[in-house]
């Protein structure tokens, strides 16, 4: 039951919601509601469970439903596709919220071949957009997250990343339609001009740029979003370079930074650690059945058996073949100068290579889920600090985090992904969901890493629901002024505090003290 709402009132509110969206789109029974849980939750069973779910079909139904939510002060949790696993999936921030499920709104409203963009609703997945583009004969690519069942809008709103040159999804977002808590509809940028044909072509307009305010937030319900799509290039050259030593990480990023900043390597270049890379091919139990981290001697055997390095660097070149050929010389000279580097331009029967190559050319797939077989029992949460792509800093961060993983009995399984000027470090803390002790250790490890990373000056770019408050508190500058600003905006835009309370540690006034 939503907090502070009695059963009779809740039942009345559900009646009113059913009158808006149709009875068949209001869910209260245990089976349909089970679809809204976090299958990989690091919390004990029974936490973060919804009270009901409501699935509107269009913007008008959203507006009407918001009236009901406001009238009864019902907290809702809004999502598009709900595939945000490792960060909480579709689950609500607290038990009792009503799920505001926008999956029915899954129209691809426009594909513009000339300017290279699409306008989509919240429920559109990468697979759906990819299939649509192929069906209409488009020469545009999507930039899918891995895995590709995620939502185009949801991933961009969560600051997600992909692997083509268009891999920074929020950077590639252009134009939004948002329903505010009071039901008012706002279009951002050029979308505010009546009859504008350029809503998805330029981010700029007169006045403040508001789009970012509706990402990782709870200030409105985004109902349409423009996303830029990459034209299919005339040439594509994916490659992987393996590096023998863990300490090579510093040299890798010192070599890659100028190639990235100058756009010689235009896509999201990624250095994948041995265990992440090999987990698409084998499992831990084939090598080591003991507790605790895998010994170094066994890591070396794994690397040898599978022709891998301690780091495995993926990137690709795109464009006309002469340009690729020319840029390749620069890449080869820089990246192959590290002793022991081995170049791979193809790998037979290697699922990890296959799915990375697909992702870098905009083909969605689900293969990354297979790495959950490494432990078995598939639980995982991602700790994702972000920093500049500096070799020394990357190595120092790696050493700190790897040591903490080992202290808590986990293997380090991670990757570093370099964008334009940023480096996302994704640590996958993997555990068997059926093992309560392991799950609790994963939770404790995550909490410790948040504090230690903050002490070292690193913040996370995205996080699981369970750690949103802790991470919000690490943004301490000027006595937490940034979150104070979030809260001032929240109080003005959503005075009843109905929209996703607690999202990213942003709470409405009435719930702020308890948080």
């Amino acid at each position, binding site marked *: 039951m939503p907090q502070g709402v009695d059963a009779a009132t809740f039942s009345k509110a559900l009646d009113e919601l059913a009158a808006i969206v149709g009875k068949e789109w209001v869910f209260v029974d245990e089976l349909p509601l089970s679809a809204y849980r976090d299958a990989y939750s690091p919390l004990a069973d029974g936490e973060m469970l919804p009270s009901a779910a409501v699935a509107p079909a269009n913007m008008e139904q959203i507006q009407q439903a918001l009236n009901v939510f406001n009238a009864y002060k019902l907290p809702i949790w809004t999502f598009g596709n709900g595939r945000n696993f490792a960060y909480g999936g579709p689950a609500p921030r607290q038990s009792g919220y009503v799920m505001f499920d926008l999956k029915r709104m899954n129209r691809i409203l426009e594909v513009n071949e000339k300017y290279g963009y699409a306008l989509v609703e919240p429920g559109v997945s990468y697979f759906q957009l990819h299939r649509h583009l192929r069906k209409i004969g488009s020469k545009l690519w999507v930039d899918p997250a891995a*895995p590709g069942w995620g939502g185009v809008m949801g991933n961009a709103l969560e600051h997600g990343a992909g692997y083509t040159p268009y891999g920074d999804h929020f950077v590639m977002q252009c134009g939004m339609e948002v329903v505010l808590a009071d039901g008012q509809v706002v279009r951002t940028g050029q979308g505010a001009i009546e009859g504008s044909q350029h809503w998805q072509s330029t981010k700029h307009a007169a006045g403040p740029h508001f789009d970012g305010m509706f990402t990782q937030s709870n200030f409105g319900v985004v109902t349409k979003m423009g996303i830029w799509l990459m034209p299919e290039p005339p040439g594509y050259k994916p490659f992987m370079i393996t590096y023998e030593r863990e300490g090579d990480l510093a040299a890798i990023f010192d070599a890659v930074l100028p190639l990235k900043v100058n756009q010689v390597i235009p896509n999201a270049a990624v250095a994948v650690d041995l265990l992440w890379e090999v987990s698409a091919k084998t499992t831990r139990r084939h090598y080591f059945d003991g507790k605790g981290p895998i010994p170094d001697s066994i890591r070396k055997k794994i690397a040898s058996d599978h022709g891998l390095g301690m780091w495995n660097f993926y990137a690709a070149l795109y464009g006309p073949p002469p340009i690729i050929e020319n840029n390749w010389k620069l890449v080869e000279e820089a990246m192959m100068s590290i002793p022991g580097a081995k170049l791979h331009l193809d790998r037979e029967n290697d699922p990890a290579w296959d799915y990375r190559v697909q992702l870098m050319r905009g083909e969605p797939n689900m293969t990354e*889920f297979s790495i959950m077989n490494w432990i078995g*029992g598939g639980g995982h949460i991602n700790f994702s600090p972000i920093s500049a792509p500096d070799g020394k800093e990357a190595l120092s961060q790696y050493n700190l985090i790897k040591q903490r993983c080992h202290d808590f009995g986990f293997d380090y399984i991670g990757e570093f992904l370099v964008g334009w000027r940023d480096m996302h470090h994704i640590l996958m803390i993997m555990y068997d969901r059926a093992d309560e002790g392991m799950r609790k250790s994963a939770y404790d490890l995550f909490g410790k890493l948040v504090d230690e990373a903050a002490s070292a000056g690193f913040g996370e770019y995205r996080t699981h629901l369970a750690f949103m408050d802790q991470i919000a508190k690490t943004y301490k500058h000027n006595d937490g002024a940034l979150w104070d600003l979030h809260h001032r905006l929240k109080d003005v835009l959503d005075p009843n505090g109905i929209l996703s309370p607690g999202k990213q540690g942003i709470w409405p006034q009435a719930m702020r003290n308890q948080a």
Partner: protein
Amino acid sequence: MAWDVSRRTVMSGGAVGAAVVGLGIGRSAWAKRPIKTIVIEEAEVPESRLFAETFVNSGRAAKIIRIDRSLNGLLHELAIAEGVLVGLTSDPAAMIAEQILVADGARPLLQWTHHYRKMRWEHRTEGAPALLARASTGWPTVLAHHMQDALFGDRQTAELRCESGHCSLDGKSPGMLVSWAFEVGVQQS
């Protein structure tokens, strides 16, 4: 309209922890109805292939859906499937299938786990596990028959755990598998 808002005990945990036992279809009705059974085979997983083969050989499988290691087929094929879907798959494939099928209104019928630890398979199932306990590498065949009994014959619903004798693990096996069954698009009487 009256909403029964007090009876909610939402399932929690994931594929492994989800409490599908007792979700309550009348199993005795299965034997009387011609139900189309679709078997999901995860082609890279040797146990999954053996399980599917047993279903085919016993004449129970109306169709086999083969999923390659991209797992993409789970999204495309399950969306159009109808009948009783069964599989012995890796845990990630089971989780994806559950997400897709439950969101589409499917009803979980059973979900069991099979975990390779310390040179043995540990099976958590329902009903008499004696044969499973005696089976080593051939356990998916025994499981397929056991599942057919559970779905189409008399079912014992006691939750049980058993371990096989010492056996090796196939180099291609994930070592943690989930057997599952869902009913899709079939109206209950």
